[in-house]
């Protein structure tokens, strides 16, 4: 049994992914929480499992963390099969979840010491890591207070600190920043980036597209227990379409001049706001040339332009496209 994270970090085969799931299926009664879900995560990367509430994200994490047996399919984590050798998998993973797995009737340092020892770390290691984690997560001030008196953000940070005690090479984070204020969220992101920089593999679930974009090298979209898309954030954004150049004309007459000058390129998206959208087909230099043409044509037509904005597609567009929900007009990202 590995006594430190470093031993567990070595996989059977250097090329084997840190996490490899194939055809995972899980039913609760008649409802299928997961249906034939596969994913792979390379060692030292962040994979985001993205989807709305009830999509099956937590079920997926619980199966990979050996807490739940799938009805069908297989999963290997850290080189070991989760169903056949759960103890070996457990020695290589950390889990911080929505359920907040902390002992509320102990203090923060007591929690760290207890779980460190239960991870079978030597006392000097436990003391050194407890002190470091309390500092990194800014939890030292809470002292001997029982955790049940902590704020939600503090509990979440302690939860993550506990899962880092054994310095696991693979970390599962189930909605790690749900309900955190922006400052705590960014602090947590920095911590996660630091871990990944040192070689940790992270699988995180999130409903925040911004979070997946900020952290993950690859994104797996699931909805109603099925994978609906997977790829890098850039690939997924490319699927959502091109960049958009939005113009707000000064008067109604300017709208007519604009559409006359730009022809089929321009689409009036909102007559009342005099909003005209021009899709940019290319990216990079090619896109800039297109923009030159568009702005040149608009200037030549003498159309008055009040405001303009250029918007790259973001994961929100992917999300709304894939989940079939209409993007609310004027939603984030549309601002000038």
């Amino acid at each position: 049994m590995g006594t430190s994270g470093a031993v567990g970090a070595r996989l059977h085969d250097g090329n084997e992914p840190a996490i490899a799931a194939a055809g995972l299926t899980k039913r609760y009664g008649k409802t299928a929480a997961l249906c034939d879900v596969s994913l792979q995560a390379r060692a030292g990367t962040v994979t985001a499992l993205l989807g709305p509430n009830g999509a099956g994200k937590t079920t997926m994490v619980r199966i990979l963390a050996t807490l739940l047996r799938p009805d069908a399919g297989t999963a290997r984590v850290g080189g070991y099969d989760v169903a056949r050798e759960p103890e070996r998998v457990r020695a290589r993973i950390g889990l911080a979840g929505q359920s907040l797995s902390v002992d509320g009737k102990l203090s923060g340092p007591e929690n760290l010491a207890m779980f460190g020892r239960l991870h079978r770390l030597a006392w000097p290691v436990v003391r050194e890591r407890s002190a470091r984690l309390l500092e990194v997560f800014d939890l030292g001030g809470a002292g001997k207070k029982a955790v049940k008196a902590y704020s939600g953000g503090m509990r979440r940070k302690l939860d993550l600190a506990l899962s880092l005690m054994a310095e696991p090479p693979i970390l599962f984070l189930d909605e790690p920043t749900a309900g955190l204020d922006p400052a705590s969220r960014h602090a947590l992101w920095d911590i996660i980036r630091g871990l990944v920089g040192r070689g940790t593999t992270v699988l995180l679930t999130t409903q925040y597209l911004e979070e997946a974009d900020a952290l993950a090298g690859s994104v797996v979209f699931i909805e109603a227990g099925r994978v609906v898309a997977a790829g890098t954030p850039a690939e997924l954004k490319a699927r959502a379409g091109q960049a958009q150049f939005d113009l707000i004309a000064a008067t109604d007459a300017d709208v007519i001049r604009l559409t006359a000058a730009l022809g089929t390129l321009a689409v009036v998206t909102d007559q009342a706001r005099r909003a005209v959208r021009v899709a940019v087909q290319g990216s990079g230099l090619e896109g800039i040339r297109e923009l030159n043409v568009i702005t040149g044509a608009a200037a030549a037509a003498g159309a008055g332009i009040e405001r303009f904005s250029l918007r790259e597609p973001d994961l929100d567009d992917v999300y709304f496209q894939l989940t079939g929900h209409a993007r609310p007009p004027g939603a984030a990202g549309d601002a000038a």
Partner: protein
Amino acid sequence: MTAVPAGTRCRSAAWGASDYWEMAKRSLRHIRHDPEQLVNVTLQPVLIVVLADFLFGGAINTGTHGSYINFVMPGILVVAAAFAAVTTTISVAADMLEGVIDRFRTLPMAKSAVITGHVIADLARGLVGLAVAIAAGYAVGFRPAAGIGGWAMAVPVFLLVTLALSLLAALIGLLGKSVEVAQQLAAIIIIPIFFSSALVPAGTMPPWLRVVTANQPVTQAVDTLRALLLNQPPGSHLWLTLTEFGGIIVVAFTLATILFKRTANALAVGG
């Protein structure tokens, strides 16, 4: 599984012991953060002693034992141990319903330590209860004839009984679907005490009941403690107590370990 090197096995045993120790420390620390737990084990024995002495003391003729308080004290000790065990039921049931159980499950630790931690804390609470009950007994006239030798045997017997009741309590805690239900179920531990020789001499009971009481473990335990504290030879009661409660401990521990794994898995649902 690959073969385990000899050295590793030794280490594993040491780590297993460490798991039990850490989980026991956990439960003892819960007492510090939640001192109401001790109210249960200190107040109840005092109330029972007072109730027994002033309310029943005059009415119950215990025959050869002298005063009623001398007769009933060993019974009260077992009652106190049973009440202390109910705390174990509550702690175990609460654990199973909280997220912390997930973290225990993902650890490479000895899983039975989750249960035994509470049981060890219960032994500590039981000892506190024992001391309080005896002090209260002394205050109302309890004067045991036992010398050092009698006490030196009585305390381990008491701890054995407490351990068995506590493991049964843990088992009940695992069965309850909620803390409240588990607490109700814990009455299963309390009831047999009233159908024993703990509070009244079995001689006054109807014959059919006498058969039940005479042959149930609580009577053996109470009769053993009574003999030891009144400085009489415990005879076969001692051996029956040791074997019966030893048996309860083995069976309850095995069942609790199996049930823990099963319940923890059944609770594993996600969204």
